[in-house]
């Protein structure tokens, strides 16, 4: 791993740690912080400091160190984690984030940044009024001996065993292994030490600045494992540091022996020399492990040893408990794999090609009408479908992560506005495509800020209206017919229809005599240059933003709509397609052209009543009676200006988007089709009513019908007609 890669990992890790730190801080603000939360905050700071030290980022180390010292006091119950401290810590979080982004952009820390550090450090040092802890926060604190020997008299195995192989660059990074060993002396007593010179090259071949020495240490101490481990926090990266508690299971020693590059017996001998193991124990351990490995892998060596009374169960249990926490974290990490997003994209592209190829194969099978071929192609299609679903699900992430960021936004904005606003989050487990998640953050922030600024009234107004003083902002997400719906709702004043209308007329967006539906009036706030706020605040009201919000959402093939009840609140509903790559489609034909309607939107298909056939063909929009319901329909033939005579029998595909239904009249229904969405080129992507294209099994191109925009168009046309009639 080159330094750049390592640095990238460091940056990513920092971001994640800061996120968890922020989340823990925010939860601490709401309810008294649990010990766990405080530990999480502390650990985050501690790890950042440690890793930063490894890269020689002194400005980060020194800054985080102060914060860590304060957190250590919190952890030791010396100072309470009260709201002012939480607020300060949040600023510290932000500042670390800033330091890290400087790093990411390869910018040298400038004066502003360092000044920011200094101010926060000054704020923090108030909490450290008495003498600050010497070096790290890991003071040699006396603890109750967790692994007290049963008999009381210390026996050899009551010592810790430390196996240290340092990163070769440890010296260059300004750290001296000897000082760690010296520091160990403050935690306990080094009973015996073996300095390993195996890897030391001859004098003329050695690089004097590379660290070659390793150590095996038998160590007697009352400190707990975490404390001993923390001694090596700064050198952990790239070093092999093994710490075995007193009376660890023999298997752990064996594991240690096997994990070391040196050959088994050499290290085994070292352990014996160190006095950690007796020769008998080592041999037994090695022997029983061989035994266990062959017949049954699953049985933990520890259990075997207990059965054989080699180690005492109590001791094993104690040791296990102590390490369980550490291990749990590691397991969670191990079950996740970080994958380059590009690789996933490539996979999904390939799956797309696979779908096209397999539909080509089934087409041939159908033509040839060979039963065996048909059977096998249908199996392949089914498998391809499964592969498609699992490939796409790889890209799916729960929206909860995005939502929880808003805790901070709401907290900060409500403080800025002087309003008391609480955030309610639901549906955070709803999954959607990662690209969508990334791109939805900004528009969502805008909507949230807008709701808080314009939607929720000041406390006095709320009181006068008989509402609870604390305003509520809700974020919700759920799936709805192949779409994901994200709602931002507030219990504020709602949108004032008349005011918006008047404003739009004033801005020249509409004519005073125009007739608009309620929805269309609300949608005016998304027009460029529209703002009804009487006062332009820091947050919103400048009239930029809402149009950008809509543009961003439309770029994701989504829509945004507003529900509002005057005096009771408003809901902004963002509707987004679940994925941007592959969908289930419904293939239809008009004349010689093929079209795909997203299957999730199709409700049913009916035959166009004969009374309507050919009738009114001049009209773009018309309606039929669908079981007593008025269903407006649109002729695709007319819409796309396809020449030729319509067949005698036409079909209607009934589609639904949101709560609106519409019929699309086509010549022929071809059936379901897995559709790989290919975006249209720059020249064509402005065409309304088409969302992209796909390649059919026979190599022909089918256009994907963009139902929402087609609906809009149909409505516009209808409204225009009404206006004309008026």
């Amino acid at each position, binding site marked *: 791993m080159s330094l750049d890669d390592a640095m990238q990992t460091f940056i990513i890790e920092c971001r994640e740690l800061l996120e968890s730190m922020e989340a823990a801080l925010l939860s601490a603000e709401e309810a008294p912080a649990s010990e766990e939360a405080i530990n999480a905050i502390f650990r985050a700071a501690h790890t950042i400091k440690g890793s930063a030290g490894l890269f020689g980022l002194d400005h980060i180390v020194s800054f985080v160190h102060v914060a860590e010292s304060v957190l250590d006091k919190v952890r030791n119950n010396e100072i309470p984690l009260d709201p002012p401290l939480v607020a300060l810590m949040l600023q510290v979080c932000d500042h670390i984030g800033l330091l890290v982004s400087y790093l990411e952009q390869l910018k040298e820390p400038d004066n502003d940044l360092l000044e920011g550090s200094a101010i926060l450090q000054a704020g923090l040092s108030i909490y450290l009024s008495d003498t600050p802890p010497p070096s790290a926060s890991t003071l040699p604190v006396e603890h109750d001996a967790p692994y007290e020997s049963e008999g009381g008299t210390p026996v050899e195995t009551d010592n810790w065993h430390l196996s240290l192989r340092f990163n070769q660059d440890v010296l*260059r990074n300004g750290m001296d292994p000897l000082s760690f060993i010296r520091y160990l002396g403050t935690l306990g007593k080094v009973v015996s030490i073996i300095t390993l010179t195996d890897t030391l090259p001859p*004098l003329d071949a*050695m690089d004097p600045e590379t660290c070659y*020495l390793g150590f095996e240490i038998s160590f007697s101490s009352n400190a707990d494992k975490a404390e001993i481990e923390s001694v090596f926090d700064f050198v952990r990266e790239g070093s092999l540091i093994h710490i075995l508690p007193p009376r660890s299971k023999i298997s752990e020693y064996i594991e240690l022996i096997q994990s070391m590059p040196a050959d088994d017996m050499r290290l085994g001998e070292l352990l014996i020399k160190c006095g950690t193991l007796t020769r008998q124990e080592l041999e037994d351990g090695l022997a029983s492990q061989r035994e266990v490995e062959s017949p049954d892998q699953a049985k933990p060596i520890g259990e075997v040893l207990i059965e054989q009374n080699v180690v005492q169960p109590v001791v094993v249990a104690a040791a296990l408990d102590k390490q369980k926490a550490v291990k749990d974290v590691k397991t969670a990490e191990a079950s996740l794999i970080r994958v380059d997003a590009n690789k996933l994209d490539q996979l999904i592209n390939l799956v797309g090609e696979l779908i096209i190829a397999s539909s080509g194969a089934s087409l041939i099978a159908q033509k040839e009408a060979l039963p065996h071929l048909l059977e096998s192609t249908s199996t392949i299609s089914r498998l391809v479908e499964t592969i498609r679903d699992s490939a796409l699900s790889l890209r799916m992430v729960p929206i909860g992560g995005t939502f929880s960021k808003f805790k901070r936004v709401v907290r900060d904005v409500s403080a800025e506005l002087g309003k008391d606003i609480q955030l309610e989050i639901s549906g955070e487990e709803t999954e959607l495509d990662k690209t969508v998640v990334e791109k939805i953050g900004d528009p969502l922030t805008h909507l949230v800020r807008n709701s808080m600024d314009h939607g929720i009234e000041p406390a006095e107004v709320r009181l006068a209206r008989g509402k609870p003083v604390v305003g509520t902002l809700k974020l919700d997400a759920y799936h709805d017919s192949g779409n994901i719906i994200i709602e931002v709702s507030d219990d504020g004043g709602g949108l004032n229809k008349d005011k918006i209308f008047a404003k739009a007329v004033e801005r020249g967006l509409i004519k005073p005599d125009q007739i608009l539906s309620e929805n269309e009036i609300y949608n005016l706030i998304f027009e460029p240059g529209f703002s009804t706020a009487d006062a332009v605040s820091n947050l919103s009201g400048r009239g930029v933003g809402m149009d950008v919000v809509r543009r961003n959402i439309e770029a994701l093939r989504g829509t945004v709509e507003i529900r509002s009840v005057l005096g009771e609140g408003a809901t902004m509903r963002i509707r987004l397609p679940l994925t941007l790559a592959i969908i289930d489609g419904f293939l239809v034909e008009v004349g010689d052209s093929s079209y795909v309607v997203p299957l999730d939107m199709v409700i049913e298909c009916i035959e166009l009543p004969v009374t309507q056939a050919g009738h009114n063909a001049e009209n773009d929009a018309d309606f039929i009676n669908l079981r007593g319901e008025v269903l407006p329909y649109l002729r695709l033939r007319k819409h796309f200006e396809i020449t030729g005579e319509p067949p005698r029998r036409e079909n209607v595909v009934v589609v639904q988007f949101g709560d609106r239904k519409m019929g699309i009249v086509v010549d022929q229904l071809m059936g379901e089709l897995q559709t790989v969405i290919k975006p249209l080129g720059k020249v064509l992507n402005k065409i309304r009513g088409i969302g992209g294209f796909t390649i059919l099994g026979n190599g022909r191109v089918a256009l994907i019908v963009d139902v929402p925009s087609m609906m809009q168009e149909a409505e516009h046309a209808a409204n225009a007609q009404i206006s004309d009639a008026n």
Partner: protein
Amino acid sequence: MTITVHINGAMGHVVIEGEMTIFEAAEYHAALLPPVTQCHTLELDLTNVTEIDTSGLQLLVSAKLRSQQTGSTLSITGHSETVQQVLDATDLAGFFGDQVVLTASE
């Protein structure tokens, strides 16, 4: 830091004073290389070494290992307290075998 090297045929005498740390490691390495490779008998005077870290220690260890392999003699004639402490802390006094704490084990 200063390092004084006297080479008289197969005999060598090296006096090191000041700090033996990573900051000077490259210089030490360069300065120690000729006497260690040329001399059959080499004496190291570390009486006035004020500080020694891992880099200094491993240089000494490497030099000593070489002398053991080639059958030459490398002895430390004087230890400062710091050097002695480090040798104690790493249990290497026996390895060097000079009259500090233990008698020679070879």
